[in-house]
């Protein structure tokens, strides 16, 4: 994998699922349209079985279990020590516009997302799309045009709505579990041993 922007990759070894490595990979730019295509491998979290690596190694784009896509740059990834649930924290888009209005000061919110489990416990939205590059979580809905149906954490469409990309489509993408203030840039997430708290570092606006 080579990209220009968002060059870090997050690795997490599961404590619950034997020899399972999670990898989070972000976008190549602020609005990376390649992330719209699953086979691009951009803006995804995937899990890989380290027991079955072939000689040439896995191809991130083709192999592995998809935990989620449409995740702009989810740098922090954590596994709940009790339930094994997989969580991530998301660095969302800069300079957002909506229907001609510059809404970037207080939107979109950063996100904490949930991706199910690695032990085979079924979770419907595992591997689902979390919105990027078109849908983002509202932080201050009042700053967004056409906000009657939006609350904090609602997925809304960036730019101008059309017949395919609109708030209805965005409402069908997986919404965050928690929404944080815009541009806080969460970069890591750790649980305490009992799993009663999650700790998150926030870089703050770049």
């Amino acid at each position: 994998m080579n990209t220009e922007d968002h060059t870090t990759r997050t690795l997490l070894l599961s404590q619950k699922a034997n020899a399972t490595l999670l990898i989070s990979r972000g976008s190549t730019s602020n609005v990376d349209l390649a992330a719209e295509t699953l086979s691009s491998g951009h803006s995804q979290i995937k899990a890989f079985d380290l027991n079955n690596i072939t000689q040439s190694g896995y191809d991130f784009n083709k192999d592995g279990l998809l935990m989620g896509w449409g995740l702009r740059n989810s740098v922090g990834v954590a596994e709940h020590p009790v339930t094994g649930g997989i969580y991530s924290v998301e660095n969302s888009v800069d300079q957002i516009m909506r229907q001609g209005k510059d809404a970037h000061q207080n939107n979109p919110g950063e996100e904490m997302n949930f991706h199910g489990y690695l032990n085979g416990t079924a979770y419907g939205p595992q591997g689902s799309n979390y919105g990027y590059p078109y849908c983002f979580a509202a932080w201050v809905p009042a700053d967004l045009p056409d906000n009657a149906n939006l609350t904090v954490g609602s997925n809304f469409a960036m730019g101008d709505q059309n017949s395919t990309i609109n708030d209805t489509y965005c409402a069908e993408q997986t919404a965050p579990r928690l929404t944080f203030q815009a541009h806080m840039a969460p970069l890591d997430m750790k649980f305490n041993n009992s799993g009663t708290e999650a700790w998150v570092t926030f870089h703050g606006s770049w």
Partner: protein
Amino acid sequence: MALVATGLTKPRSLQFDSAGNLLVVQAGSGIVNLALQDNGGTCLSVKSRKNVVQNGGVSIPILRILPWPS
């Protein structure tokens, strides 16, 4: 959600050490060790702070070796 520590510069990775102190990587400046004060409930504050590694211009990741297979 509770705010525990402020005044960090470009914080990235975080990890707890075996004594319960919070280690935080500050990109470009190194690793800081935050000793925490439990004020009851979910109220935590930083009791003291010291530099573990001071390093300008270098981003140092924290690596944790996990027992494997678990």
